């Protein structure tokens, strides 16, 4: 038996013994997600046990080095773990911005001390991280950031405001871009700082969206004292860290999206807008849905193909922008057609059932897809410059 085959057997046995039955069922709602963090309330003992067991193996972050709390798995081993978890439909034990955004950035840019301190907290789900990039007046244009840190020798005094800080009201720490070098050129004056949200002067407030309640917040810094050792990478080079991290975010927004499972044909069935053969009754709407299906198949296949290429050693690079652009525009169209298929049923905003209004809220929420994580326009700019190498405008 090859090493990998025997590894697979070990994994299979371990999962069989350690993954609780209730953690092998599909997640039904937001509260089945394990986000971790100091204030997180587990929805069940199984959820807690599953996290602890996986964290002990380092398998919440399978490919991170063991010394930082990861699993130390090779790429092939990590793939096997993923396949075996999928086989038994195991839920992810932990989902967090720490894992898919901050962690990779720390591994690349963090100091040895930072890695030893922060990464294990992430793998064990002890600290939940928020992201502090955007500001009012600086959405796509991060170079226009105004949150500033005044240099006080061994610390900075940070003042300013961040927006779109997802779940910041439930998070413990925030990684934030702060202008620390006022005299440097715009892109070079920004630092990447790690800030405890319990420190004096940090406050946060949820933002209500057109789709209703949202995980987004505004976060305010009012004379917050941040020690110099809390910087990642060098002063003024926060932009490098941010870009690296954003490329991870983009791939994520494009691929997932709450809408991927949502289906206008199912909507037509639900609202009774089908003919006696079960076909979407309005032939023009049917044609629109079919064209959407074609583009959705194309997108789904492209995700797989780019993954294949990545596995084959080709970098994803600026293709993340392609996926972000196409995936989010597609998702908006999908939601629009879903609303059309629901007709007046889709217009419901509130009713007796908690899920009443979900289609409308999902549809409205989808409009943000092409804004957050870099607007569609920014993605097209990136593609034009970096992939097509078109001349500067």
């Amino acid at each position, binding site marked *: 038996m090859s090493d990998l085959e025997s590894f697979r057997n070990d994994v299979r046995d371990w999962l069989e013994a350690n993954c609780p039955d209730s953690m092998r069922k599909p997640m039904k709602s937001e509260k089945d997600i394990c986000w971790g963090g100091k204030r997180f309330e587990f929805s069940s003992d199984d959820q807690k046990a599953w996290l602890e067991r996986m964290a002990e193996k380092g398998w919440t972050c399978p490919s991170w080095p063991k010394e930082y709390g990861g699993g130390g798995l090779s790429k092939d081993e990590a793939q096997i773990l993923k396949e075996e978890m999928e086989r038994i439909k195991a839920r992810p034990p932990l989902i967090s911005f720490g894992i898919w955004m901050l962690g990779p950035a720390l591994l690349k840019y963090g100091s040895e001390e930072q890695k030893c301190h922060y990464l294990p907290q992430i793998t064990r789900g002890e600290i939940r991280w928020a992201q502090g990039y955007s500001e009012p007046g600086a*959405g796509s244009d991060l170079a226009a950031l105004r949150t500033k840190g005044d240099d006080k020798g061994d610390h900075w005094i940070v003042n300013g405001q961040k927006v779109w800080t997802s779940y910041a009201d439930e998070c413990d720490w925030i990684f934030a871009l702060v202008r620390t070098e006022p005299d440097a050129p715009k892109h070079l004056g920004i630092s990447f700082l790690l800030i405890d949200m319990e420190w004096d002067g940090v406050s946060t407030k949820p933002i209500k969206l057109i789709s209703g309640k949202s995980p987004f917040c505004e976060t305010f810094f009012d004379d917050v004292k941040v020690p110099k050792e809390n910087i990642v990478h060098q002063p003024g080079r926060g932009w490098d860290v941010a870009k690296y991290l954003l490329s991870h975010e983009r791939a994520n927004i494009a691929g997932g999206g709450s809408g991927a499972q949502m289906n206008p044909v199912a909507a037509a069935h639900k609202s009774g807008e089908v003919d006696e053969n079960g076909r979407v009754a309005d032939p*023009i709407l049917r044609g629109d849905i079919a064209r959407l299906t074609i583009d959705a198949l194309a997108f789904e296949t492209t995700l797989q193909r780019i993954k294949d290429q990545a596995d084959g050693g080709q970098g994803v690079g600026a293709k993340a922008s392609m996926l972000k652009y196409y995936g989010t525009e597609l998702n908006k169209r999908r939601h629009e057609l879903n609303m059309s298929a629901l007709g*007046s049923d889709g217009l419901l*905003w509130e009713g007796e059932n908690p899920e009443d209004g979900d289609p409308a809220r999902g549809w*409205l929420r989808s*409009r943000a897809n092409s804004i957050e994580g870099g607007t569609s326009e920014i993605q097209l700019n990136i593609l034009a410059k970096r992939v097509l190498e078109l001349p500067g405008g």
Partner: protein
Amino acid sequence: MSYILSEEEQMLRDSAQAFLAEKSPVSELRRLRDEGCKDGFRHAIWKDMADMGWNGIVIPEEFGGVDMGFTAAGLILQEMGRTLAATPFLASSVLCATALRYGGTDGQKSEHLPKIASGEKVYALAVDEKARHDASHIETRARKDGNGFRLSGQKRHVVCGNGADMLIVAARMDDDSIGLFLVDPEASGVERTLRRSVDSHAPANIQFDDVKLDGDALLSETEDGSALLDLVLDSGRACLAAEQLGIAEEAFSRTLDYIKEREQFGQKIGSFQSLQHRAAHLLTEVEMTQSLVIKALRQLDEAPSQAPLWIAAAKAKATRVSRLSSAEAIQMHGGVGMTDEYEIGFFYKRAQAAGEFLGDDAWGAGRVAQLSGY
């Protein structure tokens, strides 16, 4: 047929603009929503509108109206689109007034039209039974019962249905022809369910369970109830298209202001060519919509037999363009466009609801093909 507004029409539009800006700006819709208003409109404003003469805009003078025609009604709705005024105007003063005017006996007109014109009572039209508008699908039954009728069935998404004092209900009669019936929503057997909608209006689903109606509940001036219903719906579609036009115009105009002010990468974002081209395209689409809307309204006033094609085209185009304009508005506003605090999202929401009511763009395209014989 003139595409130019007459002086009288221009004055009407100006006064509508002034009135709505003062009494019913977008913030008023937000207030209605936040207060959880169950009628979906403000009675005081509705009364003021009656005082302006608007509520009787398509009602003959002998019944208390000003009889200015559908173009005039459309102009008011266009301005309502710009401020997202939520009122019973379309339901009561257009749809139901048209039904009574062209389908009511003298007695019915004398009794009901003055109430609409004075704003004393709010009327609503109950037609749709499917989720997507399809006026041919009517299964609600009005069975002959002595001198009167017994009404049974279900209506969906009756616009202004929750706050209405009187309903006009489309139902199938014993010979399968269509009749329009005046029904008191407080009558025994009528049950209304408020369906708060995404645009913060208050439509209702309404159940009719063996509701007893008098013989004179039937609008019986015309034999052909189906033709009457078509005319009523077309009047609503043309006027609603005008409201959608107003939505498209205002969302566009606010976006234009925004991209002229907002800076990014050290430049006004309105200086980026890709946004400029999209804005210029929108300008053109709004202009095209405007042409179809005025054409549809004028046809309805001056050559109603020719009107259906133009109305279907106008409703389809206005649906598409109002949605495009408000969607582009959110995108060009970026993050703030997504916040509830900003008003632009209200336009996108209303565009969706107005689009779905009385037929969306796919419906309109289908009808254009059908009316054109292909």
